C-alpha cells in the first residue's frame, strides 16, 4: 500500500512558468465524470493527465456472480449510448463458447439494430460535440432524430436505453409488426437530416476554425496508443472490423469504410458523418433482405422457450424452470470476441470454467484506450481546443470506468 501512496503524482512540476488547472469531474464538456489535470503555460497545454474511475462500479466483478444470461442487462450499463453493441458483443462471445448457430433472421435483425445503435450514438456525439464548440442549434436537431430511434428501441425491446434485447442464442422477442414501417420511415427521413446537419456545420467558419488542424494524431501514434474506430480511420488507417474480420453476417452487406488523412478533429467529424450515411445503407439492406425464420437458436437447454409453449408443453416448462433457476453450463474455455462498436473495437474476453456462471468477463472498451492518446492530441494547443478534442474522441465514461 505504502508505495502506492508515495508514488509521485505525474503533475508535480516546478510551478515557475506553468500552473495546474483542474478540469472536471463535473465539467459539462467532459461528457460525464472525466477529470483532467492540466498543466498550462498561459493558455497553452503543456501536460495533461486524465484521472478516471469516478464511475467505477465493478461490473466485471459483478458478472462473476451472475448466470450467463443475467450478464446481458449489465452490458447495457457499460456504454449507455450504444447498448445493443454491448449486448451483441457479449452474446457473440458466449455463443462462440457454446458453438451456437444463430438463425439468419436473428443475425440480420442484430445487424439492423446495431446500425441503428450506431446512428443513435453518433447523433448524440454530433449534438454534444457541436454544442461544446458553440453550435447550440444542432443539439436539438440531433436529439429530435435520436428520439425516433429511441422510440423504435422502445417498441422492439420495451426500453428506450437499457434495451437488453439481444439474448444468448438470438433475440428476446419477434419485433412487433409496426417496427418495420417505423424503421423504413426513419431510414427514409435520415439522409436529408444528415445533409441538414452538414449544411449547418461544414460551411460554418467558426466550426472550421475550431476543428481543422486541431488535435493532430498521426497513424503511428494512433496504433501505438490503441486507438480504434473513427479516430483511427480519421488518422488514415483503413481498418473496420465489420469489413475486415466480419461477425454476425456483416460479410453479406455492402458498405464503404470512410477514411480520412486529416488526422484532426475535422476529419473525425467527416468520418463519423460518412459512417452515419453508410449505416443507413446497411440498415436498409438488412430491412430489405430480412430472411424469414426463427429469431432464436434451436437449443432448448440454453434459449428460453416461447411463452406459449412454456404454458402448454411440459418439456418446455421444465427447460424454462431449469434455465431460470440454474442457468446453463458453458463448456470450459476462453474466447475474445471483438466488434466494431460506434466508438471502435469493443472486445469481450470471457473465461468459462464449465459452470453456469462466467469465471471472468473482461471488457475491452474503445474509449479507455483512446483516452491515452488525449495528451498527444492536446499538448501545444489552446485550453479551448481540449474541449473540442474531447468531443472528437466521443468518450463515454460508463465504458471507461465500468
Amino acid at each position: 500500500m505504502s508505495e502506492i501512496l508515495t508514488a509521485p503524482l505525474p503533475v508535480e512540476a516546478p510551478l515557475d512558468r506553468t500552473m495546474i488547472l483542474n478540469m472536471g469531474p463535473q465539467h459539462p464538456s467532459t461528457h460525464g465524470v472525466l477529470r483532467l489535470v492540466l498543466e498550462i503555460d498561459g493558455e497553452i497545454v503543456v501536460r495533461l493527465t486524465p484521472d478516471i474511475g469516478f464511475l467505477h462500479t465493478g461490473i466485471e466483478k459483478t458478472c462473476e456472480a451472475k448466470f450467463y444470461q443475467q450478464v446481458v442487462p449489465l452490458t447495457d450499463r457499460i456504454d449507455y449510448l450504444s447498448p445493443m453493441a454491448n449486448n451483441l458483443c457479449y452474446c457473440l462471445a458466449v455463443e462462440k463458447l457454446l458453438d451456437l448457430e444463430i438463425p439468419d433472421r436473428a443475425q440480420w435483425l442484430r445487424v439492423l439494430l446495431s446500425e441503428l445503435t450506431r446512428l443513435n450514438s453518433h447523433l448524440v456525439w454530433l449534438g454534444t460535440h457541436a454544442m461544446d464548440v458553440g453550435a447550440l442549434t444542432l443539439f436539438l436537431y440531433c436529439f429530435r432524430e435520436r428520439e425516433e430511434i429511441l422510440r423504435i428501441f422502445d417498441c422492439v425491446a420495451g426500453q428506450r436505453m437499457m434495451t437488453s434485447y439481444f439474448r444468448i442464442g438470438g433475440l428476446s422477442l419477434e419485433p412487433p409488426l409496426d417496427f418495420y414501417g417505423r424503421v423504413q420511415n426513419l431510414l427514409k427521413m435520415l439522409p436529408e437530416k444528415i445533409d441538414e446537419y452538414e449544411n449547418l456545420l461544414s460551411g460554418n467558419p467558426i466550426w472550421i476554425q475550431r476543428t481543422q488542424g486541431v488535435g493532430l494524431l498521426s497513424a503511428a501514434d494512433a496504433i501505438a496508443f490503441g486507438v480504434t474506430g473513427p479516430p483511427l480511420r480519421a488518422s488514415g488507417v483503413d481498418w473496420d472490423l465489420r469489413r475486415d474480420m466480419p461477425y454476425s453476417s456483416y460479410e453479406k452487406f455492402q458498405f464503404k469504410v470512410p477514411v480520412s488523412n486529416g488526422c484532426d478533429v475535422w476529419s473525425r467529424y467527416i468520418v463519423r458523418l460518412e459512417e452515419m450515411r453508410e449505416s443507413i445503407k446497411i440498415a436498409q439492406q438488412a430491412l430489405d433482405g430480412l430472411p424469414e425464420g426463427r429469431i432464436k437458436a434451436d437449443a432448448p437447454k440454453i434459449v428460453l422457450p416461447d411463452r406459449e409453449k412454456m404454458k402448454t408443453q411440459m418439456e418446455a416448462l421444465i427447460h424454462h424452470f431449469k434455465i431460470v433457476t440454474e442457468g446453463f453450463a458453458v463448456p470450459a474455455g476462453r474466447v475474445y470476441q471483438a466488434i466494431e462498436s460506434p466508438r471502435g473495437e469493443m472486445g469481450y474476453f470471457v473465461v468459462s470454467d464449465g459452470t453456469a456462471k462466467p469465471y471472468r468477463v473482461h471488457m475491452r472498451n474503445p474509449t479507455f484506450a483512446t483516452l491515452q492518446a488525449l495528451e498527444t492530441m492536446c499538448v501545444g494547443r489552446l485550453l479551448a481546443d481540449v474541449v473540442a478534442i474531447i468531443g472528437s474522441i466521443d468518450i463515454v465514461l460508463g465504458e471507461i470506468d465500468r
Partner: protein
Amino acid sequence: MASVTGKNAVLASHAENRAIATLQQQFPNAVLDATFDHKELTLTVAREEIVNICRAVQAAGYNFLADVTCVDGYPAHPRFQVTYHILSHALKERLRLCVPVGAADASLNSITSVWPAANFYEREVFDLFGVKFNGHPNLRRIMLPEDFGAHPLRKDFPVEGYR
C-alpha cells in the same frame, strides 16, 4: 479448424503461423504451452521474456495491442494469468499471449516500451489484481481510490457482505 491442445500438437499444426514461426525461431524455450480453440490461438510464454516476445511479434506484423488483462486462478499455482490480446491489421489475425505469474512475487516487466497503449491496461491490472509491472512509467491505481487497500477482482475478494 478443430481445436488443438498441447504445445507440440499446436506448434506442429500451425507451423506456418507467423507468430509461432517467429517465436520458434527466436525464443524456442520461451513458449511453455499452446492452445488453438474457437479459432483463437493462445500461446503461454515465460514471464522473463514477455517484453522481448512482444517486440518480436510486433516486428512480425502483429502491430496492434488490443487488450491487457488478467485472470485469477486462485487457488491454482501459478495464480495469475496475465493475458495480452494482440491484433495484426495486415494478417487480419489475433494472437493471445498468456503469462503465468505466481502469487508470491506477482510482478512482471511492463510492455509500455513496446506499446504505449499498455499503460492504462497495466495500471488497471495492477489496481484490480495487484500484479505489479516493473518499469511502468506511472504505476498507480486507475479506477479505485489510492487508499482502497485491496484488489477487488481477485477471487478471494468477496462480492457481497463485509470485508
